[in-house]
């Protein structure tokens, strides 16, 4: 537990008898980049609001490592960009950051310009935020979240509206903040491909519930290409796999086996199983990426495809 920054237990939030978040457990390690994956309306934003103190949980609790009781000290170490960037459009980018700096009692001109430079907006510091494109607003929102040098950065769909170049820049910036300054980052997105490039740990959320919490390694394992054998009973198949020198396989349940190696040997394997007169319902190579895996999981939860 010592390596945990945040542990949430049975966190729930109800809005007028509708459960937006239902008994969520989260374990965010110090120094990680934690990805929260979920469809729109899955409950990602509500979770983020609760753990940043913007919304009061209906039930459950969460603890920041080292901050017991009054969470305000913990909140002081958080920077957040939740939902749309909360900018005042009639103020310049510079003044928007200055406002927050004044409220925090920190920063001078150089500090403000440094934050703007970090997100590539130093050239438009005096331009009104209302004139910014969506991508520029996102960058400014991130810059504002970084005011106060937080230990924990909570970013809700931060790459929304960014062009490909912008996405790369933000990704590199976040990875730099994580590796160089040790900032723990909680990031939500529905662009899974992008999240996969940055996050080290994941939680998949659907209809207010965490379906799965895992590491990148676990996910990669689950998503990599494999031979899938469906049979009425997996037990007699296993000696055949061993005798044919297959070692990287996994028995998923009494009917399913995943084999992660020598995908080209599928015909030989099929023949060996047939020779042993074991009835096979299906055998084939299955490719799966993160997105597919996510759809399978959330679809399963919704009673859909499996």
């Amino acid at each position, binding site marked *: 537990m010592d390596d945990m920054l945040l542990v949430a237990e049975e966190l729930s939030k109800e809005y007028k008898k509708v459960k937006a978040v239902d008994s969520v457990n989260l374990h965010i390690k110090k120094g990680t980049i934690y990805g929260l994956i979920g469809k729109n309306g899955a409950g990602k934003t509500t979770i983020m609001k609760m753990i940043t103190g913007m*919304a009061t949980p209906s039930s459950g609790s969460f603890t920041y490592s080292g901050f017991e009781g009054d*969470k305000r000290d913990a909140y002081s170490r958080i*920077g957040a960009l939740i939902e749309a960037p*909360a900018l005042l459009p009639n103020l310049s980018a510079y003044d928007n950051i200055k*406002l*927050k700096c*004044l*409220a925090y009692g920190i920063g001078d001109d150089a500090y403000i310009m440094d934050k703007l430079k970090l997100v590539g907006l130093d050239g438009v510091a005096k331009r009104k935020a209302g004139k910014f494109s969506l991508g520029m607003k996102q960058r400014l929102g991130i810059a504002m979240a970084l005011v106060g040098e937080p230990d924990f950065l*909570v970013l809700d769909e931060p790459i929304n509206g960014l062009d490909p170049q912008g996405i790369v820049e933000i990704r590199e910036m976040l990875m730099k903040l994580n590796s160089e300054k040790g900032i723990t980052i909680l990031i939500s997105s529905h662009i899974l491909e992008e999240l996969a490039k940055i996050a080290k740990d994941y939680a998949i959320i659907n209809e207010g519930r965490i379906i799965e919490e895992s590491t990148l390694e676990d996910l990669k394992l689950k998503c990599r290409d494999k031979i899938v054998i469906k049979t009425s009973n997996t037990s007699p198949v296993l000696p055949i796999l061993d005798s044919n020198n297959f070692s990287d396989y996994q028995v998923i349940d009494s009917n399913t086996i995943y084999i992660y190696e020598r995908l080209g040997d599928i015909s030989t394997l099929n023949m060996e199983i047939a020779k042993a007169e074991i009835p096979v319902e299906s055998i084939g190579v299955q490719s799966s990426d993160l997105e597919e895996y996510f759809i399978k999981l959330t679809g399963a939860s919704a009673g859909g495809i499996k």
Partner: protein
Amino acid sequence: MYLRFLKSELFRASKHKCVYILILVLAAVLFLESIVFLKFSIPGMSQDDVYSMGQEGYSAEGMSESFNMGFNAGRAVSPVVHDEEEDMSEEDIPAYTLSDFWGEGLFYNDDFPTLYWLNVSSSFHLFAVAVFTALFLGSTYKYGYDKNLIVGNRYRFSLFFARITVIAIYSAILLIATFLMTVVYDLLFTGSVDWNLDSSVLGYSLVSFVLSFAFSMIAVFIATLTKNTAASMTVSIMLSMGFLSLGLSIISFVMTYIFPSLPSDFQLVNYTITQNAEALSLQSTGKEVLRALIVAVVYSFLSIEGSLLIIRRRDIG
């Protein structure tokens, strides 16, 4: 924390265009009011009309009571050249020229404190406070700005009190601006300032400020409740214009009917901020001042408590 928030909110207010626009509008309104109070008896009436009225035994004072800037009615002014008791002769009516406009050539001989009281009691500053409060608070709700400040330092009440301090400061600025503009316009239209200052001016200003603050707290409560700039501005402006008095008059009538023991002159409207602001004068007695202060304190307390209750129960963003 409060002081940091105050610094930040003062900076934010300084960037609001409405802060300056409302003072410019106040200047324009006071300009018109001062002209009317000093130079013209009744807008739209010629000197011949005024002369004819005098000949027919009518008083220009009576007509002036129907004049208001849209916010107030019922003030009394004192014509220089005649009063209700005497007929006007043709010589009494000043023959205006353009040069009379700037400098001497008064229709009324109000001294500076009276002109200041006339300008304050027109309640335009309440209108301006209502607009400012709706815009100043409304923008934080509209753009979800509080998310930036509260995440990281969850001192919502400090932020709230910093904001009402800014609104109180702006209320004070509007009253000070009214004072200064009255000086300028008095000088401009009469050629000199008949100061005649005594403690009643200071006392009147302080009670007016307390009433103005109480009114702004009602506007704060409405803005906090509705989270909507247009709705809060509309309701606050209607209150500043005394619209509430219409409903209260009916309620008062019903109450005196149900409770015959109530005094026949019982009027709930006497316990509103706007009514007290308008009724207050430089000559107000201790009882009137006390009532105004009690009304202000009660409204302020209820509005602040109501706002805090909403803030306590509501999530941010």
